[in-house]
């Protein structure tokens, strides 16, 4: 049970006022919280508000969508990775006697798939969209490379994927951390692997990403594009799922002592993009990414020399050289919250800074509170 920082409380009250003015639906349905007298310490629920189960609101999706329980079962003595492993093995492997006969067919199929893929690459026979997104390469190379990291290294537990619509656009807004944008990559894997519609998250990246040789073109091939309003709005008009980390370098490069403290949300450009395209905002809280590269120092002159926003010093980097690039195996949770609708607001309000800031604050508070709740539940950084 954590009591809140007074500043957070003040922000929260401001947001509540804004919310009632804007007329947006309450994100958590916790109307009682709003009227709570300010003298009482606010209680952060230990479990997500699961009473509603699935969101009533959906974007065209139908049918059962939850693959795994929305909230992890209270952790028992059994370590989570093992449960995940066994659950998957049980789901994917056919009965034992059949398996023996099917094995050759299976690897032959895999070989055929691999050769087909190589042939497509060699002949340039694949489609790339106007942003440079190469689905073939992403599904067959990038995601398989990230998957072991997702499943076995960080043992990511994804909560609330059902809040992400099966079809149509949505804007996933998340907290940024971890010195390197591994959190964005893991969220991409989460939405592809855990979501029934296997959605591709289109990331909005800083211009530094696209300036770097190698990284920039890889980022485009993986579906990201420059974080600017024209691109964000175009993607959402095309019905894509867009991911944004509005804290930017302030968030990802914050010192370790500030972990899980959300930074300022820029100018709220993501809100105006969502308002203009009438696309719901899905707050996403990521726990575990802060600990992968604990940034305990920053060599500013070196950063300036390299044109980077910071030059991180972690317990392992640069002391151990390339070994310092190995992230610490923290246990991750990625929780998607209830969508914040924007289609109830006039798109013209996108140019009203007050509305934009209010919604941005609402999103920020939602993420911050979910972070606090997830952190309160977490017993150990590495075991979860």
């Amino acid at each position, binding site marked *: 049970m954590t009591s809140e920082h007074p500043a957070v409380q003040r922000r929260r009250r401001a947001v509540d006022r804004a919310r009632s003015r804007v007329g947006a639906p309450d994100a958590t349905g916790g109307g009682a919280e709003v009227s709570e007298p300010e003298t009482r310490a606010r209680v952060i629920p230990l479990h997500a508000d699961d009473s509603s189960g699935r969101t009533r609101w959906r974007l065209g999706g139908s049918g059962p969508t939850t693959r795994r329980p929305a909230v992890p079962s209270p952790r028992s003595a059994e370590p989570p990775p093992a449960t995940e492993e066994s659950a998957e093995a049980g789901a994917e492997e056919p009965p034992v006697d059949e398996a023996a006969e099917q094995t050759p067919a299976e690897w032959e199929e895999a070989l055929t798939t691999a050769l087909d893929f190589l042939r497509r690459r060699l002949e340039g026979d694949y489609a790339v969209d106007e942003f440079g997104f190469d689905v073939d390469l992403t599904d067959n190379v990038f995601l398989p490379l990230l998957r072991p990291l997702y499943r076995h290294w960080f043992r990511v537990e994804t909560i609330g994927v059902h809040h992400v619509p099966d079809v149509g656009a949505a804007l996933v807004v998340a907290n940024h951390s971890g010195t390197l944008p591994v959190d964005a990559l893991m969220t991409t894997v989460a939405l592809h692997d855990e979501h029934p519609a296997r959605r591709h998250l289109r990331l909005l990246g800083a211009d530094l990403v696209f300036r770097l040789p190698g990284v*920039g073109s890889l980022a485009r091939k993986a579906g990201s594009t420059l974080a600017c309003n024209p691109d964000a709005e175009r993607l959402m008009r095309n019905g894509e799922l867009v991911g944004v980390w509005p804290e930017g370098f302030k968030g990802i490069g914050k010192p370790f002592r500030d972990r899980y403290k959300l930074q300022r949300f820029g100018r709220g450009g993501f809100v105006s993009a969502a308002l203009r395209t009438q696309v719901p905002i899905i707050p996403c809280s990521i726990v575990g990414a802060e600990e992968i590269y604990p940034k305990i120092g920053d060599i500013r002159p070196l950063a300036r020399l390299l044109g980077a926003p910071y030059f991180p010093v972690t317990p392992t980097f640069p002391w151990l050289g390339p070994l310092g690039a190995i992230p610490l195996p923290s246990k991750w949770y990625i929780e998607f919250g209830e969508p914040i609708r924007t289609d109830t607001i006039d798109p013209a309000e996108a140019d009203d800074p007050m509305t934009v800031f209010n919604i941005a604050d609402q999103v920020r508070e939602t993420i911050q509170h979910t972070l606090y709740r997830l952190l309160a539940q977490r017993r150990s950084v590495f075991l979860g």
Partner: protein
Amino acid sequence: MPPSVVLVTGVSRFLGGHLAARLAADPGIERVLGVDIVPPSRDMLRRMGRAEFVRADIRNPLIAKVISRASVDTVVHTALSSEPARSGGRTAMKEMNVIGTMQLLAACQKASSVRRMVLKSTTAVYGASSRDPALFDETMTPKEIPSGGWAKDATEIEGYLRGFARRRPDVSVTVLRFSNLIGPRVDNAFTRYFSLPVVPTVLGYDARVQLLHEEDGLAVLERAVSEEIPGVFNVAADGVLLLSQAIRRAGRVALPVPGIAVGSVGKLLRTARIVDYSPEQLRLLNFGRVVDTTRLRRQFGFTPRWTTVQAFDDFVRGAVLRPLLPPDRIDALERVLREGGITAGRQVDKLLSAVGAR
């Protein structure tokens, strides 16, 4: 009102020449005048049919006489050159592009018969950088004003044309920003680049390439001449290819060159007269440039018939590029790999079952 006397500049080159030929085939148009400083090839002259060729320099005020004497009502300016080597060096190219356009506009401003002005511009006016949005629409301006070369010329020319439109509000002005033209017949820096057996690219960059089929380009120009549709329009095919993908589709081999060496490799190719690639085009190879063509479809009423991929494939077929790795060789390689893989896999299986049995 359909045009009766059309003047086309740059008829010695692909777009101008073929446009003049197409217009000459239209019985609704009374006269077609083709202007250039060099005469078109004999083949082109034959194609142009009844179109008249006027050997004149648009930098010379004499052009005003040509326009007024023939009482030209529609001027199509396609003479902008993007290749310094073909126009006798960068200085001559700039002179031809900028001064030529200024003279032409001055002549048009004086001529009361002129009712319509069509400029073939380029999407290079948007520049190409890492900070640009993925797609440019007509309202966007480049992050950095092009510092030189073709893009700067085109930007300046468009500026002069805006000035002309202000001074002559009765003239309908259409600016068509063309993407890179490609096709079996067109010969430009881009097609020559992809015809190299080993194609140098910039290491660590893979540009998005958007093209325009030559036939679509001609059809757009023709439509701009015959209909009055003022405005600025991006003209490009649907979809994109990645540079690496295009090189593979052409059966070429990409040679990634580190950024530092790009300048010297480009210079080498230029001096060897293989490919005339200017620095700004090399920048295009870094980041690529894709434009939004919604306005072309909605307002201009034209939908390109070729997508970028189709246009490129048409070029590859038409140019009869011999792939370095022909499909039958790939087939053979695939067969070997597949059979080898299966044999090896079976052996491993056998081994595993033997071990398991023990």
